[in-house]
């Protein structure tokens, strides 16, 4: 039978025991979720009500169920921790003794209720100490050790340990004021004298059961975080080391030791730290056994301890010169952990814990003054060379068979692990310098020339990976082993994709070196071109070719024909995915840039003719999704080619390339020649695809990229491009067309020769967009965004555009105001940018001045609405800019407008009072110099308007 849902507790119900119990019943058992929610809300009110002091004790009655008792205990904790000031001082003692009584009673009762009661007593103790309760901790220990209680001793002991464990935890999360926090912390730290002997005794007692010892270790972990002097913890740390032998206690003991060693203050107690080294070293046998038996938990735990000591205190321990051997032994133990057998992350996960230690140790060594550093280097250079071997061993791929069984998640973790190793090696180079590269080179040489013992591909790959890790970020130009390495690369028998990838990436990492040593290009280029035909090596081979073409373009002309031919072939065979095809085109753009114009044209012709033909065919077809993709692909190839094809060399910064530079060409730029040739075809494509935003975007991208690279060389194309853009935009308005218009305005509007077509285009775009606004612009926030940016650009580069008689400045202004109210933040930002550019022109451009003076109040209202809470808080700086500009350029108007606007009740927010509005208005009107101040005022006012002022949530706003 379906149970009828009980009625929810009415809001006005008294907070009595019965009602609380009823609500709890609903909270736990009512099938109706709404009733549950109501009960929950009511119970939260009950918990903080004054009546809670009364009903919570009754709820703790032993005949109640644990859910009800728990609520009682929890309500007590909340009252004590949050409403401390409600309690009269003369009731502290009663409260204390009541809590003690209940804790004793629950020592053998429900565990969750016991913990809550302990937390409540802990909270009470923290609020009372030290004045009202001087020896709180000692009292607690004494109370529970009293023999006269009728509760069984073991249960009392557990209850005491629970109380002592939650006390420091409650301290860490308590809301004590800062000055009290320091005071209470030092009192607690002193009181460890009452706790630690008890814990020691319990740990050392032979007959203490495991669960008690576990509790003791947890309690110790909790106490060490109170900044207790390390030497006071020494005995317990040693006892925790002993506990590591007990499998049942192992995890808790590791936690305790690591917590004790890692506390920041510990470094002040060097003698104690030194005493901890032998017990850590003493764990080596246990570690070895764990590794042998594949016990990952144990090896992980021991490694954490060794690393905690090494990582946190390497500087302090290194300073103890007379103990150098014992520290070196610790370092060697950590080395063992780094090199732990097996593959990460399948057979082991420990080795990754150690990597940060090696950074820290190196930093500490390198921070010594030169004389001292030299001594340490003598000891630690061999260690770091050994580390390189160990890391490269760990970076090796497993056998193909094994790797095949790994999940994709494991493969990804292994990749991340290798990147971490790579970062470590790069850092180690700082310490070992060029010798590191020579050692890698020697090893690789021996491996590849050893005919007796064939090497595994994994070994070769790892060595190359190490080399690449360093060469990728560090300048290896002065290394004398690179030529040898490049000589070795062709000897590698590339039997495997991973190895081939690493070979490619290594060549890529050396591309800058190749630019300085062009004679070596021929040694590696054939390998790259060969790899280009392998789809499995797509990313590595294409990116390497691109790097080489970018860095070495002036030395590539002899190879250009071959590179173009191979690239063309792989493009035609469709070996690579779209993005790699795009990279390849960029590579070819770099390559062609260094050729003579006629050579460029010849290559361009052969390179793009097949695509042009294909595009012609596609342009004749009826639009469908598959030919759309093909069109976008071809247009993308062209844009990427034109992104890097730059014969002007205006941004070359190669020092030695002066002599190699070609003289600046006379006559048309080859890119312009090609663009003009394909212009009609592009128009034809557009005529069919005008409605499609993606195709239009791809077309615009070609011109956008070309303009960016060609700059003034693009000039011959301006008239026809303006015309095409005008046609496009008046047929179907698209944001990308406005963006391209903006770029043309930016680059060419100030040149008299180009002004007429650009002006015509600007006026056309504006008038079409205004029509769009009349129809409802909400569907096109992107167009509005781009339009606002165009207007701002026009005002910046060529304000004269606003003098045209057929530009409706008033309509443009109103559109700007509308855009300020859009929900899309970028659009609002763009319109703020427009007004920030417009307002300073009030004086110089009459139509602008007139419109602003007549309509400025509407703008101000929109700005205040935004500040009042309608716009995102992150936009406030931009709104402040408008207010600042209004104040600077239309002061007399602003003072009237702001008064009028603020008079309206509840505007811009019902949360601000007339006084607050008045203050804000005065502040704004007064500040005409310091923009930062205006931004601060706006921020403060917006918080008031949103009801967020003074909350911790917005403290950092």
């Amino acid at each position: 039978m379906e149970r009828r849902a009980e009625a929810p507790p009415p809001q006005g119900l008294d907070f009595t025991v019965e009602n609380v119990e009823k609500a709890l019943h609903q909270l736990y058992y009512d099938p109706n979720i709404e009733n549950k929610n109501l009960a929950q809300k009511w119970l939260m009110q009950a918990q903080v009500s004054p009546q809670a002091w009364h009903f919570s004790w009754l709820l703790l009655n032993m005949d109640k169920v644990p859910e009800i008792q728990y609520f009682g205990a929890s309500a007590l904790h909340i009252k004590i921790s949050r409403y401390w000031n409600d309690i009269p001082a003369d009731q502290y003692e009663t409260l204390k003794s009541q809590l003690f009584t209940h804790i004793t009673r629950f020592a053998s009762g429900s565990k969750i209720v016991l913990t809550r009661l302990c937390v409540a007593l802990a909270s009470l103790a923290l609020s009372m100490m030290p004045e009202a309760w001087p020896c709180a901790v000692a009292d607690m220990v004494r109370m529970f050790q009293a023999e006269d209680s009728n509760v069984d001793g073991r249960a009392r002991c557990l209850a005491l340990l629970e109380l002592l464990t939650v006390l420091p935890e409650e301290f860490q999360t308590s809301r004590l004021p800062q000055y009290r926090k320091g005071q209470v912390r030092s009192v607690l730290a002193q009181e460890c004298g009452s706790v630690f002997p008890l814990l020691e005794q319990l740990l050392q007692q032979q007959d203490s059961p495991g669960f008690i010892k576990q509790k003791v270790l947890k309690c110790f972990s909790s106490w060490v975080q109170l900044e207790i002097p390390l030497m006071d913890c020494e005995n317990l740390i040693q006892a925790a080391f002993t506990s590591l032998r007990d499998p049942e206690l192992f995890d808790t003991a590791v936690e305790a030791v690591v917590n004790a060693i890692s506390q920041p203050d510990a470094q002040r107690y060097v003698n104690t730290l030194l005493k901890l080294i032998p017990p850590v070293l003493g764990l080596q046998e246990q570690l070895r056994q764990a590794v042998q038996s594949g016990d990952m938990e144990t090896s992980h735990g021991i490694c954490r301890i060794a690393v905690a000591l090494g990582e946190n205190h390497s500087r302090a321990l290194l300073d103890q010169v007379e103990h150098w051997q014992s520290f070196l032994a610790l370092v060697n133990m950590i080395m063992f952990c780094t090199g732990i057998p097996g593959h990460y992350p399948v057979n082991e996960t420990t080795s990754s814990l150690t990597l940060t230690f090696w950074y820290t140790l190196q930093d500490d060594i390198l921070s010594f003054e030169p004389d001292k550093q030299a001594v340490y280097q003598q000891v630690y250079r061999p260690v770091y060379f050994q580390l390189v071997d160990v890391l490269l061993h760990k970076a090796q791929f497993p056998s193909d068979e094994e790797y095949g069984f790994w999940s994709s998640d494991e493969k990804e973790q292994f990749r991340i692990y290798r990147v971490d190793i790579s970062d470590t090696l790069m850092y180690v180079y700082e310490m070992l310098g060029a010798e590191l590269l020579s050692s890698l080179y020697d090893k690789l040489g021996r491996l590849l020339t050893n005919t007796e013992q064939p090497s595994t591909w994994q070994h070769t790959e790892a060595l190359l990976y190490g080399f690449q890790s360093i060469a990728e970020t560090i300048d290896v130009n002065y290394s004398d082993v690179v030529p040898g390495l490049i000589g070795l690369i062709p000897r590698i028998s590339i039997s495997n994709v991973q190895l081939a990838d690493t070979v490619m990436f290594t060549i890529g990492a050396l591309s800058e070196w190749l630019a300085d040593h062009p004679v070596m290009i021929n040694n590696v280029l054939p390998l790259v071109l060969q790899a280009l035909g392998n789809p499995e090596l797509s990313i590595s081979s294409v990116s390497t070719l691109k790097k080489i073409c970018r860095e070495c373009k002036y030395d590539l002309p002899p190879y250009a024909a071959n590179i173009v031919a191979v690239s063309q072939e792989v493009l035609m065979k469709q070996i690579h995915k779209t993005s790699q095809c795009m990279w390849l085109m960029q590579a070819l753009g770099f390559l062609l840039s260094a050729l003579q114009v006629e050579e460029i044209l010849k290559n361009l012709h052969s390179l793009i003719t097949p695509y042009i033909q294909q595009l012609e065919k596609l342009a004749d077809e009826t639009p469908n999704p598959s030919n759309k993709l093909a069109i976008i692909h071809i247009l993308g190839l062209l844009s990427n080619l034109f992104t890097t094809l730059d014969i002007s060399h205006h941004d070359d910064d190669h020092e030695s390339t002066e002599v190699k530079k070609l003289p600046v060409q006379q006559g048309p730029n080859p890119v312009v020649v090609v663009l003009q040739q394909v212009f009609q075809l592009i128009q034809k494509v557009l005529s069919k695809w005008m409605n499609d935003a993606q195709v239009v975007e791809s077309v615009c991208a070609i011109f956008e990229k070309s303009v960016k690279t060609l700059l003034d060389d693009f000039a011959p194309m301006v008239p026809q491009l303006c015309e095409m853009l005008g046609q496009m935009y008046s047929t179907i308005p698209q944001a990308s067309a406005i963006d391209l218009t903006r770029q043309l305005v930016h680059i060419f509007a100030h040149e008299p020769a180009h002004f007429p077509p650009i002006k015509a285009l600007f006026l056309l775009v504006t008038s079409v967009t205004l029509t769009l606004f009349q129809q409802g612009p909400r569907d096109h926030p992107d167009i509005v965004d781009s339009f606002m940016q165009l207007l701002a650009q026009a005002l910046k580069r060529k304000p004269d555009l606003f003098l045209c008689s057929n530009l409706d400045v008033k309509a443009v202004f109103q559109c700007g105001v509308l855009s300020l109210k859009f929900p899309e933040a970028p659009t609002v930002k763009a319109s703020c940018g427009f007004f920030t550019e417009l307002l300073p022109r009030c004086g110089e451009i009459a139509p602008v001045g007139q419109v602003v003076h007549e309509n400025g109040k509407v703008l101000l209202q929109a700005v205040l609405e935004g500040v009042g809470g309608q716009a995102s808080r992150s936009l406030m700086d931009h709104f402040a800019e408008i207010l600042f500009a209004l104040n600077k350029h239309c002061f007399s108007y602003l003072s009237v407008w702001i008064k009028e606007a603020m008079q309206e009740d509840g505007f811009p927010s019902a949360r601000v009072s007339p006084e607050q509005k008045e203050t804000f208005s005065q502040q704004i009107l007064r500040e005409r110099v310091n923009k930062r101040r205006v931004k601060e005022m706006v921020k403060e006012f917006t918080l008031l308007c949103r009801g967020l002022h003074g909350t911790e949530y917005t403290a950092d706003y």
Partner: protein
Amino acid sequence: MAYQLYRNTTLGNSLQESLDELIQSQQITPQVALQVLLQFDKAINSALAQRVRNRVNFRGSLNTYRFCDNVWTFVLNDVEFREVTELVKVDKVKIVACDGKNTGSNTAE
């Protein structure tokens, strides 16, 4: 405590916008919003420290540097960023950096 510098990202801003709305419509209190924000700080710090291994190299000439309150600030001129395949040149870059070791890993869960 996790760094708060990621609050001023698209993700952080969007979160704060949503929290603002929830506070203004009185669906949550500012205290709850603060807890959410602190949780965001923790999560994004740990995610960026643990889950991201993408690398971008860059070089440029160092104009100014300072180290104040454990925050490094570098202003670089003429900087080249190199990712696997992209090279981006920028006139001026300001880098604000905090110690990654202090985040994520050592906060007690």
